[in-house]
C-alpha cells in the first residue's frame, strides 16, 4: 500500500512542477500584453514562499521568531554592499552573507535555547534583533543609503551570470525563483523526514521530557535556527538581486518580520505548502487590492493616499480572524477537513507527514 502512495505522490509532484515550468509559455501566448507583470507577480510569490518556508521551519516547532527580517536584511544588504563596495560577485557574496546570518542566528539562539527563552520572551527578543539590524542599516547610511535604501550597481546590460543580475529577463528570473522555491520545499521535506523533526516536536511540547529521553534540545534548536536563518538570508539576497533595490523597510525591520509571520499563519504553519499558500494569498490580496483601488475612481477619491494602507488593514483583520478561528491556516484547515472525510469514509487514512 505504502509504496503506491509514495509513487502517486511523486507523480503528482512531477506533474505539478512540469506545469509550473510551462507557466511562462502559457503566459506568453495567453497574456502576452502584460507578460512582464504576471511574471513579476509569480516571481514575487515564489521568492517570498521560499523565505516563508524558511521561517516556518522554526515557527512550526513553537519558535515563533519576529527576527527573520534581520536575516533577510543581512542577506540582501550583505550581498549588495559586497558587490557595490568591494566588487565581490554575489556568487561569493551570498555564501558570505549566509554565514554571517547563521552566525548571528546562532549567537542569539544559543543563549536563548540554553536559558530556555521561549514564547513571549523569545518573540520579543528576536524582535529586538530585527530592530537592531534595521537600526544598523540606517546608521551605516554612508554605505547603505540609510532609510532611502540602495541599489546594486548594474553590470553591463543588466543581465549577467557573474553579477547574478537577471532582472530584465523575467522568464529567466522566474525559473531561478522556481528553482529556489523547489530547493526550499526540499529542505522542508528533509527536515520533516529527519529525526530532528521528532526531537524538535517533542521539545516544543515539553522540553524537560524531551531532554530526559536524551534529546539535546539546545543543539536541535540551533540546527533548525541555522537552516532557517540561512534560507532567509539566501531569500533576501536573491530578492535584492531581482528587485534591484533594497531599503531597510522592504527587506529588514519589524514590518517584514510581521509580514512573514502573518503570511505563514494564513497559509498554514504545519504543512509543507502552507507557507507557499500564504505567499500566494498575501501577494494576490495586496496586488488585487492595489489594482482595484487604482482603477476605482471613487475609492481613490474617498481614501486618497491612504488607499495604499487598505491592504495592511485587511491583512490585520484577517490575521486576527485567522488566529481566533483558523489557527491552522488555509491549507492546514483544508487538509485536515479532507483527512477527516477520508477517515470517516473508512478508507486508509493518509500518512500524517509530508504533503
Amino acid at each position, binding site marked *: 500500500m505504502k509504496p503506491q502512495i509514495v509513487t502517486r505522490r511523486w507523480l503528482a509532484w512531477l506533474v505539478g512542477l512540469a506545469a509550473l515550468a510551462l507557466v511562462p509559455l502559457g503566459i506568453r501566448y495567453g497574456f502576452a500584453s502584460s507578460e512582464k507583470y504576471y511574471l513579476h507577480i509569480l516571481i514575487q510569490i515564489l521568492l517570498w514562499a521560499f523565505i516563508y518556508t524558511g521561517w516556518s521551519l522554526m515557527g512550526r516547532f513553537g519558535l515563533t521568531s519576529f527576527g527573520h527580517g534581520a536575516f533577510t536584511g543581512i542577506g540582501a544588504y550583505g550581498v549588495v554592499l559586497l558587490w557595490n563596495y568591494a566588487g565581490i560577485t554575489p556568487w561569493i557574496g551570498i555564501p558570505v552573507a549566509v554565514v554571517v546570518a547563521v552566525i548571528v542566528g546562532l549567537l542569539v539562539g544559543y543563549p536563548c535555547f540554553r536559558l530556555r527563552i521561549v514564547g513571549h520572551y523569545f518573540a520579543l*527578543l528576536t524582535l529586538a534583533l530585527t530592530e537592531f539590524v534595521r537600526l544598523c542599516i540606517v546608521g551605516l547610511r554612508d554605505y547603505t543609503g540609510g532609510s532611502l535604501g540602495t541599489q546594486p550597481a548594474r553590470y553591463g546590460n543588466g543581465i549577467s551570470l557573474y553579477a547574478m543580475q537577471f532582472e530584465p529577463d523575467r522568464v529567466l528570473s522566474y525559473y531561478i525563483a522556481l528553482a529556489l522555491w523547489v530547493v526550499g520545499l526540499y529542505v522542508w521535506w528533509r527536515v520533516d523526514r529527519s529525526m530532528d523533526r521528532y526531537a524538535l516536536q517533542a521539545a516544543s511540547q515539553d522540553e524537560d521530557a524531551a531532554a530526559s529521553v536524551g534529546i539535546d534540545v539546545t543543539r536541535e534548536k540551533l540546527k533548525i535556527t541555522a537552516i532557517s536563518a540561512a534560507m532567509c538570508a539566501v531569500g533576501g539576497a536573491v530578492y535584492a538581486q531581482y528587485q534591484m533595490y533594497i531599503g531597510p523597510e522592504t527587506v529588514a525591520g*519589524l514590518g517584514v518580520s510581521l509580514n512573514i509571520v502573518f503570511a505563514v499563519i494564513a497559509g498554514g504553519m504545519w504543512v509543507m505548502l502552507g507557507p507557499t499558500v500564504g505567499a500566494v494569498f498575501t501577494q494576490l490580496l495586496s496586488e488585487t487590492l492595489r489594482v482595484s483601488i487604482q482603477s476605482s475612481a471613487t475609492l481613490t477619491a474617498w481614501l486618497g493616499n491612504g488607499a495604499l494602507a487598505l491592504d495592511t488593514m485587511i491583512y490585520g483583520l484577517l490575521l486576527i480572524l485567522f*488566529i481566533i478561528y483558523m489557527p491552522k491556516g488555509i491549507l492546514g484547515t483544508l487538509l485536515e477537513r479532507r483527512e477527516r472525510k477520508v477517515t470517516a469514509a473508512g478508507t486508509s487514512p493518509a500518512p500524517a507527514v509530508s504533503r
Partner: protein
Amino acid sequence: MDCQLDIFFLEAVLNGLLLGGLLALLALGLNLIFGVIDVVWICYAELVMVGMYGIYYAEKSGVPFLAAALFGILLIALAGVILHYLVIRPVLDSAPINQLLVTGGVLFVLQAAATMAFGIDFKNIGIRLGSVNVFDMSFSYARIVTFGVAIATMLVLWVFLQRSYIGIAIRAIAQDRAIMPLMGVDQRKVYLVTSGIGGALAGLAACLMVLQFDIYPQIGLQFGPLIFMICVLGGLGNMIGGFIAAFIISEFIAVGGSCFATEWGYAIAFLFFMVVIFIRPQGLLGGKS
C-alpha cells in the same frame, strides 16, 4: 564622536532622565496588563498613536487642551476594554504566542486605519511650552512636565494597587490566576478593569507625547519595540523592574545618541538589552518566569 565629560554630556544625561519618565509610563501600562492578564499587547504603542490623533483632532476642533487630553485618556481606556473584549478574550486559553500574534493583527489594523483616516503626513499640535536654561543646558518644559506627570501617575497607580479593593484584586490575580476566582473575585471583571487602566495609561502617555513629538501613523513602530524591550529587561509584568529599565534604556539612547548618531543610541540600547537578557533571562528584577 565628541564624547567628553562636559556640560553637553550632562545635558544628555539629564535629558535621558526626562525621556526615561515617559518610557517608564509607557512600560507601566504594558506591564500591568501582562502581569494580570498574561498577554502582551504588541499594539500598545499603536493605541498611544490613536490617542495622539484623538487629542490632536479634539484640540483642533476648539476644545481646550486639558479637556482634549481627558478625552484622549477616556478614548484609549475604552479602546483597551474593547480590545480585550473582542480580541483577547477569544484567545485567552490558546497558546501564548497566538495572543501575541492576534494583537499584532490589531497593530496592522490600527496603523492602516490611521493612515487611511489621517494621512501619512506629520502633524504637530503646535503647543509650545518653551524651555528652561540652566547654565548652558536647555530643557524643554514639555519634557519636564512629562517627567513629572509620569512619576505622579506611577505613584497614584501604586497607591491604587495597594489600597483599593479592585487594586488588591488585580494584584492577587497577578499572583495566582487559578485561586482568585475561587475566592469570589470576578476574574473577567478584573481583566476588563485592568485593560481599561492599561488603556488609560496609554492615553495619558499620548497626552504627554503630543506635546513633544510629531504625530504620524508609524510612530508606534518607533516606540513599540522600545517599550517591549524595557518591559522584558525589567522582567515582564514587574512594574518596578520596568521603571528602572526605562531609565537605563533612555540613558543609552540619550547619551549614545549625543555621542554618535540617534540610530546608534537606539542600536546600542538594543544590543545592551540582548546581552543582559542572555545573562539574566528573567529580566533585571524578574522573579517569576
